[in-house]
């Protein structure tokens, strides 16, 4: 949340210029933000002056300061067809001159500064180039039709934002045209290049020469060319570099210079790829690369690693006998201190490879898995949880720009097929859901990816849109999970598209519901599937009927947060034994929805609403029947609300305006309809209805308990630990404002905490009531690290019941393993097995010795 305004601020900077104004104030940085031009001293950050242009209705495109001048020009458009230029004194921010001119054809897109006094733009039809001379007395427009300078017609033009002095680049589909502006203001074509991917800004180097880089894609290689701006025909540098296809196209290129050891001029290029990775190119090689795409994780799911196949392993060992021998020779060298630095590196590499951590097979404890991560760039990564390396990555073809998909976006990733029965010979796969355009009625793109090989198995570009993806609790005979995709017209589409899937769905047809939360309208609607779509020959399409709706009063309540239980959460038992061996039955329903609403006035930033007029209302809703199970009001409180729902409880975080503090509340919901099951004998012989299937239409009687506590931090995300069997006690994982993850025992958020718990309650583990939740510094699971820009926390169960795997993502990604109740089911790593063995051997020896001694003694007794 804190990063949001910061980012906005960053985005609104149009331009910054270094101006050396006064000796004592150093350079001045000009920042344009939210319609206001600020001059900031680079020494102490003092705002020297500011000029507010927000009242002028100008959309400022560029801030220009010609070299050696004290004047600043702010240029931009008013409306779509008026060009304005403001001349401002750089010393004090005074407005010197304001010029304005109309261009009847209108403008399209950005302004580009070609030379110190000439701007280039496109007209509204994108078929003509417009040069604007703004520093003379009058603003002069000059329009040149594209077909006048480029012979053929190539459709619409796009200006590339590269700053090449005296020149600019225009893209027509695949063709890139470099156009020069002559002194007389005429346009001349310099060159046409096909397959060009990106052009850098011009960079000045020795003797006032300027160079720029041009990147082209040729086959599987990229061609980096450095050219002088003023001398087109000579290439400073021409390098071709082999490039991984999974990185996609080059998006941007930046250059800088260095002096080689032979004192000649060298150039480095930093390129940004389609998958958002960064690569530094120097002398025809990739010096380093970074997977920056992982900074924008959208969704995460997991996959188990392959089962270890014994037979294959043996064959591999035989094949690599030589490798094995070589390894041992290396190790011997290492122990005899004969190894050189290269050998040592090789030994370390081998150790890393052979260590348990990075094995590519399933381990006994289930610690090592593959994290399947979908990033904003449309790339899928498989990260190994042992050492965090990228096992494979795939730039999804369905999420790349193409003719039919202009701006595709990835939405989410689901587990599609998780083989248990045929784990040996079938690979698990994931479903990636994407959309062609950002708007929500755009056609959906599905792709299925094998998680072991990282290959796309199948992809579907579909005609229908996708508003929701609902994984159903059924799988078919090949263990593919059934999914319902709800489109914008509220039709449900079934996947996989097989007759078997239809059969399974038909069997459970009347029991499948879905709901939609319309946050803007303040309505929650419940639907039930009815029949096949009418007027379509698609048998996998079903219509649905609205069953219920909950309408929140728009003047007092606005939906600000919802939470549901995780689909794969395992609950061990419904019963909760409390003090005096009494039983409470948790209300455990997969169809529970938590909704928080706040007064519309208080749904914005803090300080917008008074405590009297802001109030937070929370609901627990059964999404099958639409029944409101519980409603509670927090007066004088407001959002943002972060909530997590697990088992029978929900914990949410909000701001209390009266107390000026953050609060966390817990709400636990219990089922009253089973309380009568108290007869022990009936339970012993199994005559009870506790495990029989229940219908939500039976209107179970519920009772809730809740309590609130103060909490010091504001929160970015909340998650809860999850374990394989759901026996281990839970911990809340709170992503704090300091980008750390704090583990807080659920016991602290127990509504049954009281000021003076009885002995029995203490035995049960109830902590005496305090008004605020403790923050124990040792319980930060991120230790001293920060997960920069934390956005989400994902928990996964390990096979070992005590252990939870935690993955936190933001700009950084972080993975750890925690045990909320300590590792009660495994021995610690420093456990001395030798001592245990020794003890056992000693005990057995002692038993034998004493046995022999007692035999002997008995015999002696008999003789006397």
């Amino acid at each position, binding site marked *: 949340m804190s990063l949001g305004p910061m980012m906005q601020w960053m985005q609104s900077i149009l331009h910054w210029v270094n101006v050396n104004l006064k000796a004592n104030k150093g350079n001045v940085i000009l920042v344009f933000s939210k319609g206001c031009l600020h001059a900031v001293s680079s020494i102490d950050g003092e705002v020297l002056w500011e000029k507010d242009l927000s009242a002028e209705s100008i959309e400022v495109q560029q801030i220009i300061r010609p070299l050696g001048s004290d004047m600043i020009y702010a240029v931009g458009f008013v409306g779509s067809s008026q060009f304005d230029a403001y001349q401002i004194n750089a010393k004090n921010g005074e407005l010197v001159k304001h010029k304005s001119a109309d261009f009847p054809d209108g403008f399209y897109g950005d302004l580009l500064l070609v030379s110190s006094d000439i701007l280039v733009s496109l007209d509204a039809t994108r078929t003509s180039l417009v040069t604007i001379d703004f520093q003379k007395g009058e603003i002069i427009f000059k329009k040149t039709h594209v077909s006048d300078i480029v012979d053929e017609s190539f459709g619409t033009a796009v200006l590339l934002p590269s700053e090449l002095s005296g020149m600019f680049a225009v893209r027509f589909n695949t063709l890139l045209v470099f156009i020069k502006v002559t002194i007389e203001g005429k346009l001349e074509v310099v060159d046409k290049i096909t397959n060009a991917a990106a052009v850098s800004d011009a960079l000045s180097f020795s003797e006032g020469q300027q160079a720029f880089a041009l990147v082209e894609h040729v086959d599987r290689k990229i061609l980096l060319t450095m050219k002088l701006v003023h001398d087109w025909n000579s290439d400073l540098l021409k390098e071709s570099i082999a490039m991984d296809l999974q990185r996609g196209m080059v998006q941007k290129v930046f250059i800088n210079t260095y002096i080689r050891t032979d004192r000649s001029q060298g150039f480095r290029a930093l390129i940004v790829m389609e998958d958002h990775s960064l690569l530094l190119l120097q002398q025809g090689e990739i010096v380093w690369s970074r997977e920056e795409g992982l900074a924008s994780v959208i969704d995460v799911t997991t996959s188990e690693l392959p089962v270890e196949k014994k037979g294959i392993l043996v064959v591999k060992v035989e094949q690599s006998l030589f490798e094995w021998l070589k390894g041992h020779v290396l190790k011997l060298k290492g122990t005899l201190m004969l190894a050189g630095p290269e050998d040592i590196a090789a030994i370390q590499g081998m150790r890393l490879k052979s260590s348990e951590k990075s094995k590519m097979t399933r381990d006994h404890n289930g610690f090592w898995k593959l994290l399947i991560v979908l990033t904003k760039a449309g790339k899928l990564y498989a990260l190994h949880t042992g050492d965090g390396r990228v096992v494979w990555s795939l730039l999804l073809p369905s999420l790349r720009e193409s003719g039919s998909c202009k701006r595709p976006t990835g939405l989410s990733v689901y587990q599609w097929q998780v083989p248990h029965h045929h784990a040996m010979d079938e690979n698990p796969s994931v479903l990636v859901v994407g959309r062609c355009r950002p708007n*929500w009625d755009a056609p959906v793109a599905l792709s299925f990816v094998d998680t072991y090989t990282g290959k796309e198995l199948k992809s579907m570009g579909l005609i229908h849109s996708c508003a929701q993806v609902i994984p159903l609790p059924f799988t078919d005979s090949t263990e593919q999970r059934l999914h319902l995709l709800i489109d914008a017209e509220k039709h449900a589409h079934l996947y996989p598209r097989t007759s078997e899937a239809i059969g399974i769905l038909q069997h459970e047809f009347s029991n499948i519901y879905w*709901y939609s939360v319309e946050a803007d309208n303040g309505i929650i609607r419940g639907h039930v599937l009815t029949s096949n779509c009418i007027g379509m020959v698609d048998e996998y399409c079903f219509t649905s009927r609205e069953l219920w709706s909950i309408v929140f009063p728009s003047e007092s309540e606005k939906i600000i947060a919802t939470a549901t239980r995780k*689909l794969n959460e395992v609950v061990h038992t419904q019963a909760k034994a409390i003090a005096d061996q009494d*039983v409470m039955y948790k209300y455990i329903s997969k169809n529970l929805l938590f909704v928080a609403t706040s007064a519309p006035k208080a749904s914005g930033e803090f300080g917008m609403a008074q405590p009297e007029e802001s109030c937070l209302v929370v609901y627990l809703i059964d999404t099958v029947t639409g029944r409101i199970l519980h409603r509670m009001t927090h007066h004088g409180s407001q959002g943002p609300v972060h909530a997590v729902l697990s088992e029978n409880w929900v914990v949410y975080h909000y701001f209390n305006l009266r107390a000026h503090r953050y609060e966390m509340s817990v709400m636990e919901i219990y089922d009253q309809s089973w309380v009568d099951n108290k*007869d*022990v004998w009936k*339970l012993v012989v199994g005559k009870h209805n506790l495990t029989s299937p229940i*219908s939500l239409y039976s209107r179970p009687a519920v009772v809730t308990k809740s309590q609130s506590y103060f909490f010091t931090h504001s929160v970015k995300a909340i998650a809860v630990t999850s374990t394989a069997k759901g026996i281990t006690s839970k911990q809340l994982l709170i992503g704090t404002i300091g980008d750390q993850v704090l583990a807080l025992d659920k016991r602290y958020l127990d509504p049954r905490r009281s000021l003076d718990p009885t002995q029995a309650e203490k035995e049960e583990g109830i902590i005496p009531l305090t008004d605020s939740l403790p923050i124990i510094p040792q319980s930060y699971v991120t230790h001293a690290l920060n997960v920069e820009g934390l956005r989400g926390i994902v928990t996964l169960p390990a096979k070992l019941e005590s252990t939870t795997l935690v993955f936190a993502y933001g700009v950084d990604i972080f993975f750890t393993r925690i045990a909320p109740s300590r590792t009660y089911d495994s021995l610690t790593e420093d456990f001395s097995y030798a001592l245990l063995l020794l003890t056992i051997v000693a005990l057995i020896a002692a038993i034998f010795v004493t046995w022999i001694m007692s035999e002997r003694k008995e015999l002696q007794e008999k003789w006397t």
Partner: protein
Amino acid sequence: MEKGKGVMVGGRRWAVDFTDYSTSPSSRDIPDPPGFSRASQDQDDSTLSRQKKDAESNWKSQKAWEVAQAPFKNLLMMGFMMWMAGSTVHLFSIGITFSALLQPISALQGVGKVFEPYKDVKVDLLGPKLLFIALNLGGLALGVWKLNTLGLLPTHASDWVSSLPPAQEVEYSGGGIPIR
């Protein structure tokens, strides 16, 4: 127990009984030697042996009652130790409780063996045996009661429902805020 029994019979481990009370010669494999009259010998010792036998059976029944009452002392001691152990579950209390349970059980299993030395035609062992069993059952009951006070007996509903899996729901509903 094994050692105590040995002491009770006067440290005697084994004995060969040469006295022969049978009257008919057919009971033995070997025929009587010539000139040996079984009847005359019986007549000679009859009064002496009867007296001796009476005294022995008296002594045996007395001893049997003593043995039958022995668990009572045990019971008192166990009770005292349980009181000392307290009602919280820890190693000491669990150890005591289990020994209190095991001791009567093993004693009950060996009830025949305990009264073996006092077996006699004339001694009625039923009374002592019943007392012995009753006292040991009392000890067992004490152990079970202790187990219950420790909370280790499944006598509450919570002990039976905790292992039950949660009930399945018939309906299924999914959805949420539409993906933007």
